[in-house]
């Protein structure tokens, strides 16, 4: 998002052409977060390749329905948030109402992911598989909780009139974070539920 959308930036004549500092900040933060998630994903793949069966025969593979519903909610929230961004940019529609949907959907996604952990038929200390299950799903929960907080903050900013058609970098950054969280959640859940189908197996 170019710098014209930032409250602290004032475009020079002919500009702006370049992204705002805040956009650089969020993108680079997402790069670091992506590498963090890559480290966890690599750990899961590494542990899985050391086993003949993943999960071991004595450990049931959870259905994960709740988790996938949570992931779907996050994807939906990201999509709706993109609509919010368009509404804010064009000063059309009712972005506050639409953004309220984003908040509710995001919180719902986080709750469903957390519910999946509560329903897990095993503890995290049983086997490497169960540790992977708990931690990867847990990271998805934490990411969803963080982006939910961001969405709430933007909602409060909207209601107090801080955000308008000209200055709405926070909305853009939240949309980026939502898409990142949704994509990351899908990847983490795929590793949890579909290994060894994902990654080649043993």
């Amino acid at each position, binding site marked *: 998002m170019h710098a014209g959308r930032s409250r602290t930036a004032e475009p020079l*004549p002919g500009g702006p052409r*370049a992204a705002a500092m805040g956009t650089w900040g969020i993108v680079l933060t997402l790069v670091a977060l992506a590498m963090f998630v890559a480290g966890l994903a690599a750990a899961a793949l590494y542990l899985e390749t050391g086993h003949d069966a993943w999960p071991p025969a004595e450990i049931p593979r959870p259905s994960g329905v709740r988790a996938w519903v949570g992931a779907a909610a996050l994807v939906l929230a990201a999509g709706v948030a993109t609509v919010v961004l368009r509404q804010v940019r064009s000063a059309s529609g009712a972005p506050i109402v639409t953004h309220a949907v984003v908040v509710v959907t995001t919180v719902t996604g986080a709750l469903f992911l957390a519910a999946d952990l509560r329903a897990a038929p095993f503890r995290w200390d049983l086997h490497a598989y169960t*540790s992977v299950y708990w931690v990867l799903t847990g990271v998805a929960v934490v990411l969803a909780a963080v982006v939910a907080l961001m969405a709430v903050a933007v909602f409060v900013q909207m209601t107090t009139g801080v955000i308008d058609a000209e200055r709405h970098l926070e909305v853009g950054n939240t949309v980026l974070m939502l898409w990142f969280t949704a994509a990351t959640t899908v990847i983490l859940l795929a590793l949890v539920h579909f290994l060894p189908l994902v990654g080649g197996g043993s």
Partner: protein
Amino acid sequence: MSATGAGVGDLRLLDEVWGPRPGFIGWLGQCNHKAVGRRFIFTAFAFLLIGGAMALVMRSQLAFPDGDVVGPQVFNQLFTMHGTIMMFLFVVPMLEGFTIYVAPLALGARDMPMPRLNAFGYWVYLLGGGLLLSSFAVGAVPDSGWFAYVPLTGPDFAPGVNLDFWLLGVTMLEVSGIVAAIEIVTLVARFRAPGMSIVRMPIFVWASFVASVMILFAFPPLVAGTILLELDRKVGTVFYDAAAGGDPLLWQHLFWWFGHPEVYIQLLPALGIAAAIVVAGAGRRMAARTLVIASLVGIGILSFGLWVHHMYATGIPLLASSLFTAASFMIAIPSGVIVMSFIATMWWGRLRFTASMLYVVAFVFVFVAGGITGVMVAMVPFDWQAHDTYFIVAHFHYVLVGGSLFPILGGLHHWMPKLTGRMLDERLGRWAFALNFVGFNLAFFPQHALGLFGMPRRVWTYEAGLGWDGLNLASSVGSWVMGLGMLLFTVNLLLAHRPGGARAPADPWGADTLEWATASPAPNYNFAGVPQVASPEPMWDGVSSAGAGDAAPAGAAAEGAGADGGDADGDDAASWRSRLDRPTSRVRQAVATTGLDARPDHIVTLPGHSLWPLWAAVSLAVVMVGVLFDAVGLGVVGLVGLIASVAAWLWPGVE
């Protein structure tokens, strides 16, 4: 380089606007890059002295067979904390400090792009370091080596909170490093003076930029690894427990995924410092400048393909070992290009052998020696023989002291005028250099032989008659000599800053880059206008300008590749330049430029004072302490504090 035409009143106003608030709270809330950079540099220097003192105790223990200066447990703690302090608390933060202080000046900027994030990075670093060192106070010092290999560090073999101090402290330091990297990458992308296209950036900034990108890719996997290990220790997950389907080698992969790039993260900015000193000392452009920059980028990429060469002795498949051997050999090529360019620059220039230049000459000798032994240990058969012996200790000290410490000490000589407005004494500096150089080689060269004679690393003592006695004594004497050199360096530092000492001129070295265009120490506002850059050596080209008080020279405009061209030219350009030069409102404003060709793009208003980064860092530390002592309530309080601090920090208009 022509000077600014801003008036005295304008300068006074600029100074007030960009200066800190008065009093202790004002000092605490400083976010300006100079305050934060200096804090990083001098805190890291204090950690260097602490880590160095630990090394002296260890060498005193090993000076003679059957030594009893310290017992085995304390020795374990010392080598663990020595390595941890040097790797995590000294080198990287020191280089970040140099970058945070010098890079905005060298790029012609007024501050870092996200000053509060900058301050947050420092506070997290300070509190993370404090958390690590507080382990001494509670008698639970980490004792499993700076790389914390599992299973020695797992819950079964390392009960107590010793390793938790290490894991949580290091996690905070990694967060600090990532934050600084985000800041530096954004700085380079957006805050270069008009005309400073990407190819005109100083080599030091290029090196720091590459290292920062590497940090973004290398540090987070270690954070993942440390969190998994802490979960194993605290809540009973079994990622590293082989009996429950985990794998201890997973730690080594995650650690060295970070650990090997880390070596180059420590090397590249130091190479950049050496480059700055060489160019200034030789009085000519860096030979093969473009090739040097390409080599820095090449090292940055290749460094991610080497980590398994730390794991040859773990039973890695032959094909993998061969690939990592080849990659380890390959990285010698760009490293060699850089060293050759340094030598060529010295050869063709008119060298002034200042103390800083002496450190760079020493860097060339010592780093090349370390590089050669690096090629030796890159070969699997040799590595199997030398693994975990004193040969490895000698090798990495040649690389890290030669590649990082010596350039850092040279950099302190070189940039001290800009940091504090004082010059370090040259005569004392040369004595300190001589003691450091001789002491270092006497300390570490014999360790090659010790390793080949079979002395394993990390042993707390040894028996007489194994053929190690004389070499160990020589090594210990060398360490004491080097300790004396560091003491002399510190005395020099203190004497230079005694009350009434002589002030440094703006450009004592006749150097080429923009930081020398402004006063020493750099004023609060850095530059009294927006510099206009026409070449990689703006101080030498005769056409670049230091501020908008001057009309950009014709040469600058022609060479500037549209630096001030396009639609921001003419009256419009004069208008925004005048606003930055002669502010009418008390807000901190700076110009942001486009990524490749540095065309003026927008004016940014920067925050100047904030305590929220400090509260956020303190809250993070409270979370860590809560985790450390299993105090859930404390952890929750910290988490709530963290969320509240960040929310207040990001709220528009809140300082």
